[in-house]
């Protein structure tokens, strides 16, 4: 349970919640000032690494249930902005900064290949801003601040996706689609925040939680809740609010897809968790029956519909994008069950799916690099020619299915456990049946890679080692976190405890 709240003094360690955000935020404009793509890359990597180390340090600090509270500018909450780190967001910060640090070495070659030369510096600048935004959304304890960071990350994401136009002009329309839908989502979110502010007069999440207690019947509060859930649902690509996602993932450049798939929807899911369980009391959410009658059916629909659509895709990127929509379904299902185990399952799946999807999209990036295409028909027999890349795909695919010994299995296990604890055995069966759909679309690609004969005279080699190493770090992570769950399970359990116990008091 939540232990003591650690207040800041003057040591550098106490500034970590702020520095984690500030370092990449400062590094972004510096990229443009230096105007050199090599320096820009170094800046991005160093900033990302520093954020990662800080996040890891904070995660270790909060694993016993402590909460780090940082008052921006020394202004005490609820008037001042508070950065508040507990196990739930420290874990997500760890995921986002970790993924970013691992994919940047991979990004170097891939960006050179896919994005036109003049834009490289700008690319890293936007990347850093997007990174900052996502971290900020997660770290802050102030509702309006969430919106600010959300816009920082969204605006830079639109640019990043549009940069994919070099490879395929359709990146522009998909960025435009996302711009429209993302803006609607953000607007809904800020309207929701406004309603809550009207009703309570505060924006600090902890303070909101206190003041909202007992206001369950208030129409303004209810409307605010609905706006927030739908707004964030758009960002998290909850079925059927996912329409922007497949095209955005398909036409963005490979690195952007890896980064967004592994982190962006995860941050949005975190915000949903935070609002549904610590700002609003779980009882409120229950009484409105939104979990049972809206969230759960949508989650199940996502698991099946999106997986089915994925099974019929011919473009590997689009296939994985639809698979992401399905996987978001599992996370939402965990929210819908609203027990301690199910929230653990959601949080751990957030992490496990993050690393799994990162591996898979990195593999696709390698295919695009060597073969110039991500369509299944062009990948025949690559297993022999790119053995390491294809092996990474197999392991990532197994983790996506949830085969024992991989990270994906752990999240499935917890989710099924949660369903059975509630005596929902039909739900447990539905969960495994939808995993079987994942078998179909993963195996389809494995067969293309290993069983088909390569085209006549095609000489394709393995990608460079600087791309393989990041890919394999995450591949090994997929196995490691399937066998050793100490870090992930402890984090998820403490986080779930914190959320259900009203971690933001």
């Amino acid at each position, binding site marked *: 349970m939540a232990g003591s709240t650690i207040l800041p003094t003057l040591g550098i360690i106490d500034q970590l919640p702020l520095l984690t955000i500030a370092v990449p935020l400062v590094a972004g404009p510096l990229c443009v000032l230096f105007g050199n793509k090599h320096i820009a890359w170094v800046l991005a990597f160093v900033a990302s690494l520093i954020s990662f180390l800080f996040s890891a340090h904070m995660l270790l600090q909060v694993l016993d249930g402590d909460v780090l509270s940082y008052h921006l500018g020394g202004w005490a909450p609820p008037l001042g902005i508070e950065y508040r780190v507990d196990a739930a967001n420290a874990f997500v910060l760890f995921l986002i900064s970790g993924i970013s640090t691992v994919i940047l070495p991979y990004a170097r070659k891939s960006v050179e290949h896919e994005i036109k030369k003049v834009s490289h510096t700008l690319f890293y600048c936007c990347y850093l801003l997007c990174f900052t935004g996502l971290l900020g959304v997660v770290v802050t304890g102030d509702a309006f601040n969430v919106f600010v960071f959300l816009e920082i990350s969204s605006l830079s994401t639109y640019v990043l996706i549009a940069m994919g136009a070099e490879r395929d002009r359709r990146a522009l329309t998909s960025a435009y689609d996302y711009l429209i839908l993302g803006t609607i989502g953000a607007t809904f979110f800020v309207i929701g925040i406004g309603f809550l502010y009207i009703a309570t007069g505060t924006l600090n999440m902890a303070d909101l939680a206190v003041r909202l207690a007992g206001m369950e019947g208030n129409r303004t509060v209810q409307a605010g809740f609905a706006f927030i859930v739908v707004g964030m649902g758009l960002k998290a690509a909850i079925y059927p609010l996912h329409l922007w996602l497949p095209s955005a993932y398909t036409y963005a450049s490979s690195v952007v897809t890896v980064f967004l798939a592994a982190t962006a929807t995860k941050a949005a899911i975190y915000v949903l968790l935070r609002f549904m369980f610590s700002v609003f009391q779980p009882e409120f959410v229950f009484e409105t029956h939104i979990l049972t009658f809206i969230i759960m059916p949508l989650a199940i629909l996502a698991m099946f519909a999106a997986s089915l659509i994925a099974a019929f895709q011919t473009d590997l990127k689009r296939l994985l994008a639809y698979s992401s929509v399905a996987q978001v379904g599992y996370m939402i299902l965990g929210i819908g069950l609203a027990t301690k185990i199910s929230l653990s399952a959601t949080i751990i799946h957030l992490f496990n799916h993050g690393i799994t999807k990162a591996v898979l999209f990195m593999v696709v990036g390698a295919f695009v690099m060597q073969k110039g295409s991500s369509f299944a028909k062009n990948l025949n027999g690559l297993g022999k020619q790119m053995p390491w890349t294809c092996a990474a795909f197999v392991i990532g695919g197994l983790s996506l299915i*949830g085969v024992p010994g991989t990270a994906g299995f752990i999240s499935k296990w917890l989710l099924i456990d949660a369903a059975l604890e509630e005596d929902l055995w039909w739900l447990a069966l539905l969960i495994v049946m939808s995993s079987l759909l994942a*078998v179909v679309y993963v195996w389809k690609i494995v067969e293309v890679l290993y069983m088909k004969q390569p085209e006549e005279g095609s000489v394709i080699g393995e990608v460079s080692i600087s791309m393989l190493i990041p890919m394999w770090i995450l591949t090994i992570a997929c196995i490691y976190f399937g066998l050793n769950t100490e870090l992930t399970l402890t984090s998820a359990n403490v986080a779930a405890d914190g959320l259900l116990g009203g971690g933001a008091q």
Partner: protein
Amino acid sequence: MMETNTAILVSMALPVLACISNLLHGDRRPNLRDGITLLAAIATFGCVLSILINNGGAPTEIFTLFSIMPGLDIAFHIEPLGLLFALIASGLWVVVHLYAIGYMRGNNEGNHARFFAAFCFSISATLGIAFSANMFSLFIFYEILTIATYPLVAHKGTEEAKRGARIYVGTLLGTSIGLQMVGIIWTYVIAGTLDFTQGGILHDKEVGAGLATILLALYAFGIGKAALMPFHKWLPAAMVAPTPVSALLHAVAVVKAGVFTILKVGIYIFGIDFLAETGASQWLMWLAAFSILAASIIAMTKDNLKARLAYSTVSQLSYITLGMALATSMGVIGGGLHIAMHAFGKITLFMCAGAIYVATHKTEIKQMTGLGRVMPITYGAFLIGALSIIGLPPLGGSWSKWQLMIAAADTEQLLMIAVLMISSLLNVAYLLPIVAKGFFLTDENNNTGSGIKEAPFWCVTPLVFTALGCLVLFFYAGDIMEFLAPIGGG
């Protein structure tokens, strides 16, 4: 002598090392490569044997290798059924390895290194299944076995092989993840443990007959490797694999891993007394009986020799499921005994089918007229194997059938006795004509005159050896039953 736990780990590690050695050698120095694998196979068998000598079948303390989550351990122990299964799998590996060398070379198959590597890895997974101390570990090795055998089934790389392999992986992964895993997690939620415990872990947990029936169904259908109808299609589909694979993996390791798991679940998860009390396994008994007869009848219609043997396996596996479903100690001991007896009989038959293929490239039974006269050793071994499957003395198969019939009589399921008897007759009807055609029928296909002779030495010796095994087992059945007695709770 090695300590038992060390021996368990070494016996699982040796095949993995052999697998790595195969991959490293590639197809460059085949003799060295296959020699190293042979040594590994012998050493593995030695390890398992040393456990038997050291320890007898006495159950050992659970030994946890590592823990994934609280309650989910990769852990091993020794108990009689598992040890018997490990002995059979590792012992027959030595024999089949020799046979596989002869077959793969005699038949000019490609990709030897990949083939033997996957083969070794499958053996390691099989031993993992045999030694698992809880349902979770068993499940993990069960899945590894499925994936490790996929390259073997798809070995030829033809469209047919790919289709067969797809059905194989699809059915086995599908049933295990879709049903078995739910059963396992549910069991864990109810019982709070997954450790194999004599007498079961569910009986004191307020599990009613209805819930027990659902759980048993999740297991019975979820363990697709047991090939219970209607999830049996993968077994004939997997017969596109080279014959040594069919011989060891699909007559011994894979399918026996399935029925072995069924027995383990019956004995150590539910407990046979609990099953008998709740009657949760009644329906399974009928389904197994149906499987026995239906598969035998389908076998009669198949003219492809391997397909006929495959359906015969489907039928024989259900004997073991039936033994568990009877929910009596004699039934499970009979089931355990049948694992051993059927393994020797069926592996002989498959190796004979492979030897015929190597010597003549014939796969259809109607083309095999008169072959017995030019391949007398192969056909003699086939006859012995067939008689053992049918269950005639003095061959091993007679005892397990006898034991199962006693179990059926004991539980007053007289209809089951009839099922077993009819099944024996059906066995006669689909197995013996093959031998008869080989020895006595006029030679319409000109098999005798075209210079066909016995398959190469390394193809023939192993099958003679296992045929003799069928004979020897007849005299040692009592010892095996005594060895297995603890699993019946006696």
